[in-house]
């Protein structure tokens, strides 16, 4: 098997997806009900896939570790969703969204996938409106748009500052309809602990019931992992507390390649850490940069309150450095600019760990009422957390880990290197290259679930018609169940002194310091010697109290931290071997004279896909060359 058959269809770029659909094998409606598809995760990608596959007639089993599918972390996306509708008549088109996304990803994503994403973006908006998502509207009743980082058009659709919530509720309701009709069976409070491969095909999954600790197998014709990203490897991130890499990592350990783990996005506008008990960081939507101006005092250690600092002693550094994009420069660029100024001592706030995001000019220009209508709930959220009123004093913001572009390697059909096992949404690596543009995560999750997987999955299933698949009594399932039991009993039996949270925090510090916003060879080598040592300590000094046969959140956490350790090592190795800077991956050794990322297209214009070898410190690196036929490899400039 060629590990890198990305299965890009023939034809001109804009015809590939149509060609694919025109030639894909179909399954007759009467035969669809004979196929069982497992969907793990019920965020935008998972819920939309489960709902659509069930509508088509497949039997779908959906799994979530939450109490309800509607809790998935897609819900926390604030700002919006991109689509090339050109409703504002400002020159947008599918080609422009494609070009922006390729450029935003710093030429490290696959052209064909990105173009398909731009194509189906317009269908997503139609679909979500039909389902009753209350997007913001103009007085005439038509849909409103706003602008996001990395774009010079207004193509972002939004529902106040709760776009993710509204889209997720839409997808959840569509899935709930199928649950009511019997098309989807829901398994809530159930976590994936392993995937099972039999005769080279994914045969199903092994799960753990989070209420009883029971380990159980489920067999299927196809398995979709829509299990989100791994940003929580940093401990402090904008991810929800329960987001984890376990599903993707367990599939990786069973043979699925893991691509570009070092592409992790740091979001420029989060509320800075306030104290040592901090458990997560909260994002303030990028949309705020439409009207907020980012600045720091020109002088280091300036302790005056913001309103006492005169205009000429402020550095509006994004407007100064990137005049054509200004405060809407892409996320990686804005984040690094903030870090450099804070490192120079120009940070603000009690811990000097933030920069100002100032709305006074917007309030003067538009009036408080308009600002309140656009961002009211974000301002309220800020006030709750920081205890300051952003209508009166500027918000304090600082970059934090937010999204992970890396993930399971998938081909054009979103299938991993294990036949029958698919990855959708943030869990795969495919569309954002080395950096994701704002309002594109919601777009990709829904594109994968609604408009890509339902087409691509049938072409694989067609060949399985009439064949029996292995049941859960197959020895491979029994062995995976036994291993899972042993694994969870193992955590309970270490009986050391440190909690899983303690290890997670320490792990996060290493990753943040040495594999965060700016990476160096030295730092990465240091991390790669510190991580195995800490991991060893984890295995011998972990303490999990309670038992394995009823709800035990400490035990759940132990399993997740274990997988984060192994992923962390892969991240650092990926960052170390990618000897260039691109998008969110910034190696200090590779920068231009002006301090911008310097790509090395001769040696690194490829996807790094890692193969598990049973030793987390020695995985095998494979490369999928990226070919650009339409977009021109250029130095990304937002000046």
């Amino acid at each position, binding site marked *: 098997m060629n590990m890198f058959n990305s299965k890009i269809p023939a034809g001109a770029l804009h015809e590939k997806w149509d060609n694919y659909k025109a030639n894909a094998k179909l399954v007759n409606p009467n035969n669809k009900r004979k196929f069982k598809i497992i969907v793990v995760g019920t965020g935008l990608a998972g819920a939309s896939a489960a709902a659509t596959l069930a509508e088509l007639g497949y039997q779908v089993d959906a799994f979530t570790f939450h109490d309800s599918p509607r809790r998935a972390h897609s819900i926390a996306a604030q700002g919006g969703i991109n689509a090339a509708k050109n409703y504002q008549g400002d020159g947008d088109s599918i080609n422009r969204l494609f070009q922006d996304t390729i450029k935003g990803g710093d030429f490290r994503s696959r052209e064909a996938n990105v173009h398909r994403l731009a194509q189906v973006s317009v269908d997503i908006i139609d*679909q979500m409106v039909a389902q009753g998502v209350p997007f913001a*509207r103009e007085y005439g009743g038509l849909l409103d748009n706003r602008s996001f980082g990395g774009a010079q058009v207004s193509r972002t659709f939004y529902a106040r500052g709760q776009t993710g919530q509204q889209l997720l509720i839409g997808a959840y309701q*569509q899935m709930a309809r199928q649950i009511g009709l019997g098309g989807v069976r829901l398994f809530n409070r159930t976590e994936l602990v392993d995937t099972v491969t039999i005769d080279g095909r994914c045969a199903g999954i092994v799960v753990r019931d989070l209420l009883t600790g029971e380990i159980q197998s489920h067999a299927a014709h196809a398995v979709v992992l829509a299990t989100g990203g791994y940003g929580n490897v940093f401990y402090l991130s904008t991810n929800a507390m329960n987001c984890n890499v376990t599903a993707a990592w367990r599939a990786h350990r069973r043979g699925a390649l893991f691509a570009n783990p070092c592409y992790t996005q740091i979001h420029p506008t989060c509320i800075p850490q306030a104290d040592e008990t901090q458990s997560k960081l909260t994002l303030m939507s990028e949309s705020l940069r439409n009207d907020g101006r980012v600045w720091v005092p020109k002088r280091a250690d300036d302790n005056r309150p913001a309103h006492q600092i005169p205009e000429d002693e402020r550095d509006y550094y994004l407007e100064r450095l990137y005049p054509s994009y200004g405060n809407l420069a892409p996320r990686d660029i804005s984040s690094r600019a903030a870090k450099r100024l804070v490192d120079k001592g120009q940070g603000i706030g009690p811990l000097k760990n933030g920069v100002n995001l100032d709305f006074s000019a917007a309030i003067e220009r538009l009036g408080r009422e308009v600002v309140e209508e656009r961002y009211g709930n974000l301002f309220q959220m800020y006030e709750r957390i920081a205890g300051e009123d952003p209508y009166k004093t500027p918000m304090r913001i600082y970059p934090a880990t937010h999204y992970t572009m890396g993930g399971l390697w998938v081909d054009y059909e979103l299938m991993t290197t294990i036949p029958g096992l698919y990855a959708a949404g943030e869990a795969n690596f495919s569309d954002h290259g080395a950096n994701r543009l704002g309002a594109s995560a919601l777009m990709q999750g829904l594109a994968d679930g609604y408009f890509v997987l339902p087409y691509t999955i049938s072409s694989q299933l067609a060949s399985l018609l009439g064949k029996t698949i292995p049941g859960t009594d197959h020895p491979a399932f029994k062995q995976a169940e036994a291993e899972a039991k042993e694994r969870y009993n193992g955590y309970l039996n270490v009986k050391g002194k440190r909690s899983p949270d303690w290890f997670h925090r320490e792990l996060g510090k290493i990753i943040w310091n040495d594999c965060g916003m700016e990476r160096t060879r030295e730092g990465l080598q240091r991390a790669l010697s510190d991580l195995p040592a800490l991991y060893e300590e984890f295995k011998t000094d972990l303490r999990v109290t309670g038992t394995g046969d009823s709800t035990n959140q400490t035990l759940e956490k132990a399993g997740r931290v274990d997988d984060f350790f192994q992923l962390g090592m892969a991240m650092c190795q990926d960052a170390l071997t990618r000897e260039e800077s691109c998008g969110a991956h910034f190696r200090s050794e590779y920068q231009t004279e002006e301090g911008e990322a310097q790509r090395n297209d001769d040696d690194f214009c490829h996807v790094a896909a890692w193969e598990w070898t049973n030793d987390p410190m020695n995985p095998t690196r494979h490369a999928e060359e990226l070919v650009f036929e339409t977009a021109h490899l250029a130095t990304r400039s937002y000046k």
Partner: protein
Amino acid sequence: MSHLKNLTLKVWRQKSPADSGHFENYTIDEISDEASFLEMLDVLNEKLISDNKEAVVFDHDCREGICGTCSLMINGVAHGPQKATTTCQLHMRTFNSGDTIVVEPWRATAFPIIKDLMVDRSAFDRIIESGGFITAVTGGAPDANLIPIPKPVADAAMDSAACIGCGACVAACPNGAANLFTAAKISHLNYLPQGQSERFKRTEAMVETMDEYFGSCTNHGECSAACPKEISIDVIALMNKDYRASKFKNRKELSR
């Protein structure tokens, strides 16, 4: 940054659904006032683990007030003392040194306790499954701008759609009724032009599923006061009106 000292926590501990449960007292010697309420519980749990005791089980996830996973009756008030604020967004600066804080799970027949502070809210999902959607099969949708929706209508739908499904309304209601939740869900869809085809079928099905699990509404208004998203009690009037109408309209449809 300042610190609170000597907090006493009375926390509900219950091993299993069948266990009768009891309060246990814990002390927090010192905690930053910048910590959130759930971060304070994290500190308690770290202390319990270091004392070789089982950590307190509680539901939580996004910690930014949007996923609706967190709950807790704090001193007898759903989501605690701060108005329009979920437990995860409640910060310790709201409390004082020396305070005693009582922490309990949601208490409602329809939300059985699973363990400690965690309850089962899946009855909410059953209500949505019975009709809380607009049937729009993937792929067949017309252009999104085909039906203009007046801004006030879209805004009203959004006000209802802001519900996070946390269950505070049920926990606060003396009758354990879910009328605010159900009405918020119904009015979100019933306000919109896209929701009209199924309006009365939806309302009848959702109200009757709600009645299978939850108590009856007697207009106390506690639900709206406890709602972290400040959903107005007006939506219940709209639901009642549509429910009454549904009894005539749905029968008429059947007799055709």
